[in-house]
């Protein structure tokens, strides 16, 4: 371990905890100012229709109203991969909840009263509310003009209601399935939507001053907000400044531009500060959910238990606009196509338009349900060939030099030793014996996730008082990365204690571009940029000290707040003295750092439509749980939960344990009771906390955790992201354990008591997807269609 890495590892406590506990932290929803206006959105009440008439003139004359805006004020279209999403519905509405107009008034009540005075006539059009309807022959198109949209990223197949399609084709899959000695196993799976339910809703306060917009917002992605707002409003991106107060929960919900452009438009039009906050009902109805998905997977398994061939079709509901799902089609190759060595493989992953609220990103997006499908399928394979599931996994997990689905060559044996660690962890606390008539089940699963690398920037200013200021566009969303990992990395590099590193809250006017806080990337991408910036500062400090101490820079040691001549303790000066001297002689000392994706290669020609063809930093997880299933009620209780997680290097173990406990519990909600779906009227049916059930204190167990360190990583000091992955295989593990307890085929999540009871009495309907064609090739969008 290098000296810097050693010093970077510590149980450094987050500096924001005290104010959060005292109730003093001011999140975006807590920000207000005298003279501020309150905004509200008129949203569509139908899932599909033509806007025959829209008249806001009466609303504009209502008491207290200061501005009204519609599609005429926002000409642009934005999106990921394809620019398919306008700010307001223009000629048609495509989902219940789609914004049609926005009002700013002196009070929220006056704004809402003005919404009621807007005349809007919508002629209903046929709606496609699920992927089966959307992919049916002659289905109405959600975007009849899809061919005219600007394509922002090349390579994805598109057509009709398929917003984007990513495909993998490596090796001769037909030959593998045609072998006379293989066992063919086929499984189908379905999952619903999951709501992030961050306690702070999406919220924004906007100003327009001196020809520029200042947007203060609850977001994970200040630069996406900046750039997307500019696109939608048709103004230069440089005209927009985004700053971010502490964020009251994100989990991916805030990984996209949301309410900001509405508030910005209203601020400009009214000349006043405008606050816009989603009501809880608006949050529920327009949540950028973890998408509902439908999966078919087939494998041809050789007599020795190796996987000769695999093919899979994954349908992801993107809702009315492509959004994050366009990108996430990429992840299927790495999640459903991950974990195991495959002889030959072909996968198609399609983002499908429906007339429903757009879906988005949610912690380990795509990976959570694909891991559920893959691990349940794996257990079905093991059963079909008469092999123990643990033995099958040991034999087949990806190891050093193995090829991934896209032909990426993996480095290091990681999953196999992690499985061994899990066996040891389980042995410490063996499965309990049930004597109360409940059925017991246990399962171990593996999962593959990644770090979303990509551009980040950092500046470190060395202050003459011996403190350093780290300036990035990183956001503190609760994980603590901005409070712990980043100052720890900078401090260890500069020989300081982390409390001496001030971390600037995100401000796009102060720091360079950043992809955002999500995808496990903060410690890795922002951390790498911060470390580079700190190294530049260290080099400068050593040069100044070399002049001051009349010693060669390479003979100097920087540690414990001092710079000393090696081997002569007390010979040098404090870092404050050196920084102060340097500031007087050369001007203030600072350093900058940048980071970008490494661009790890895939095998040439085997994937199409992927935003990421190979993983720069794979992250692996092994989970294990014990469940008890009540045969009379179908209630599932999780009795014990265990995690072995690949973290590269754990900079702050307490913070990582906190992320694992929290992530696993979010996963237990997904596995057992969290489900959102679309009713026949096109509305999301779960409109409140009453109907959307998240885990409570009484539902959870303390997770037994072992961190696996030392796997290869290009992250700074060998780190990997640790906050996103804990949710990855929870649905999978609980599902496999319930299948083992009941002896039934588990094909759907969440495992609510009615669903489990239906399994127990053999009344569960296996998922049937007529819109997934039998022949793999028939699920591919023909080129040029």
């Amino acid at each position, binding site marked *: 371990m290098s000296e810097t890495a050693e010093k970077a590892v510590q149980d450094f*406590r*987050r500096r*924001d*905890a*005290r104010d*959060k*506990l*005292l*109730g*003093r*932290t*001011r*999140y975006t*929803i*807590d920000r*207000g100012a005298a003279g501020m206006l309150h905004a509200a959105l008129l949203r569509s009440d139908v899932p599909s229709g033509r806007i025959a008439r829209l008249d806001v003139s009466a609303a504009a004359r209502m008491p207290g109203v200061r501005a009204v805006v519609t599609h005429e004020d926002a000409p642009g279209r934005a999106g990921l991969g394809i620019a398919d999403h306008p700010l307001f519905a223009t000629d048609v509405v495509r989902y219940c909840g789609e914004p049609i107009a926005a009002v700013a008034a002196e009070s929220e009540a006056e704004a809402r009263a003005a919404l009621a005075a807007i005349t809007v006539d919508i002629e209903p059009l046929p709606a496609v509310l699920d992927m089966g309807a959307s992919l049916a022959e002659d289905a109405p198109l959600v975007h009849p003009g899809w061919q005219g949209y600007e394509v922002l990223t090349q390579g994805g197949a598109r057509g009709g209601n398929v917003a984007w399609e990513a495909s993998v084709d490596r090796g001769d899959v037909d030959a593998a399935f045609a072998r006379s000695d293989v066992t063919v196993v086929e499984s189908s799976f379905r999952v619903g939507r999951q709501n*992030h*339910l*961050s*306690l*702070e*809703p999406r919220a924004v306060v906007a100003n327009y001053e001196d020809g520029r917009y200042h947007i203060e917002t609850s977001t994970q992605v200040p630069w996406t907000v900046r750039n997307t707002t500019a696109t939608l409003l048709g103004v230069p991106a440089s005209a927009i400044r985004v700053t971010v107060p*502490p*964020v*009251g*929960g*994100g*989990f991916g919900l805030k990984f996209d531009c949301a309410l900001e452009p509405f508030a910005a438009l209203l601020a400009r039009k009214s000349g006043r500060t405008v606050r816009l906050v989603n*009501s*809880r009902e608006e949050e529920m109805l327009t949540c950028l959910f973890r998408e509902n998905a439908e999966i078919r997977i087939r494998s041809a398994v050789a007599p020795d238990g190796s996987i000769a061939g695999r093919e899979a079709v994954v349908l992801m509901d993107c809702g009315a606009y492509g959004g994050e799902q366009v990108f996430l089609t990429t992840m299927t190759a790495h999640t459903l196509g991950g974990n195991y060595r495959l002889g030959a493989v072909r996968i198609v992953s399609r983002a499908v338009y429906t007339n429903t609220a757009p879906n988005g990103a949610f912690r380990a997006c795509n990976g959570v349900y694909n891991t559920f499908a893959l691990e349940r399928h794996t257990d079905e394979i093991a059963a079909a060939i008469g092999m123990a599931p643990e033995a099958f996994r040991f034999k087949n997990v990806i190891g050093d030099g193995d090829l991934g689905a896209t032909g990426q060559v993996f480095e290091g044996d990681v999953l196999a030793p992690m499985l061994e660690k899990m066996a040891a962890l389980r042995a410490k606390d063996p499965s309990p014996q049930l004597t109360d008539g409940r059925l017991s089940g246990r399962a171990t699963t593996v999962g593959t996730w990644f770090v979303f690398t990509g551009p980040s920037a950092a500046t470190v200013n060395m202050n003459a008082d011996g403190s350093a200021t780290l300036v990035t566009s990183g956001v503190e*969303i*609760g*994980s*603590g990365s901005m409070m712990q990992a980043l100052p720890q990395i900078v401090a260890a590099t500069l020989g300081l204690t982390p409390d001496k590193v001030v971390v600037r809250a995100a401000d796009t006017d102060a720091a360079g571009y950043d992809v955002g806080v999500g995808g496990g990337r903060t410690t890795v991408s922002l951390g790498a940029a911060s470390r580079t910036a700190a190294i530049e500062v260290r080099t400068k400090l050593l040069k100044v000290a070399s002049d001051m101490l009349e010693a060669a820079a390479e003979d100097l040691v920087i540690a414990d707040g001092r710079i000393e001549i090696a081997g002569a303790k007390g010979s040098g000066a404090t870092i404050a003295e050196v920084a102060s001297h340097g500031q007087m002689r050369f001007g203030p000392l600072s350093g900058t750092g940048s980071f970008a994706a490494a661009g790890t290669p895939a095998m040439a020609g085997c994937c199409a439509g992927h935003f990421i063809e190979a993983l720069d930093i794979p992250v692996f997880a092994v989970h294990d749980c014990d469940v008890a299933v009540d045969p009379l009620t179908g209630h599932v209780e999780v009795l014990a939960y265990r995690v072995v997680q690949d973290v590269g290097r754990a900079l702050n173990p*307490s*913070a990582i344990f*906190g992320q694992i*406990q*929290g*992530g*696993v*519990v*979010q996963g237990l909600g997904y596995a057992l009771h969290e489900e959102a779906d679309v009713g026949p009227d096109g509305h999301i049916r779960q409109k*409140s*906390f*009453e109907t959307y059930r*998240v*885990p*409570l*204190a*009484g539902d*959870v*167990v*303390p*997770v037994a955790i072992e961190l696996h360190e030392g796997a290869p990583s290009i992250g700074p000091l060998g780190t990997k992201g640790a906050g996103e992955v804990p949710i990855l295989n929870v649905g999978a593990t609980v599902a496999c354990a319930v299948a083992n307890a009941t002896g039934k085929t588990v094909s759907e999540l969440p495992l609510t008591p009615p669903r489990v009871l239906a399994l127990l009495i053999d009344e569960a309907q296996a998922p049937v997807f007529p819109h997934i064609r039998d022949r793999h090739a028939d699920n591919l969008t023909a080129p040029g269609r």
Partner: protein
Amino acid sequence: MTIRLTVNGETREFAAAPMTPLVDVLRDGLHLTGAKPVCREGFCGACMVLVDAVPTVACLTPVALVEGRDIETVEGLTSGESPTPVQAALEEHDAVQCGMCFPGMVVALTHLTTSGTCEPNRAAVKEALVGNVCRCTGYERIVDAALAVMEAGHE
């Protein structure tokens, strides 16, 4: 109508419609933004305050119903910056993540650890927290902190 409340030990008078939720009066009228309006239907507990020392969801409490009563918010639990035993224990147990639930959680735990109504064991504490949702932490550290406070109180 004119409403008179005692908030954090001080008598305050202001005009509000009688059905105005207490949480809005506290936040918009008195700038006490500790209590968070999250679900506005009494499920999440993020707006919890003490009304005559009883934990109460401020979102479902019309201000007219607490006329003349004694309201204590998270801001009123401390004087200055020194944390209460509950706040200190939560900090010590590294329990905080996004922090949105903690003002209500602190209010609930303050009552739970001082009222003698909750047995000092895991199951009882978890049951008592049924009205407080946390989306980040997975609860166990919050329970550990509560038990530590209760155990210290019994010494």
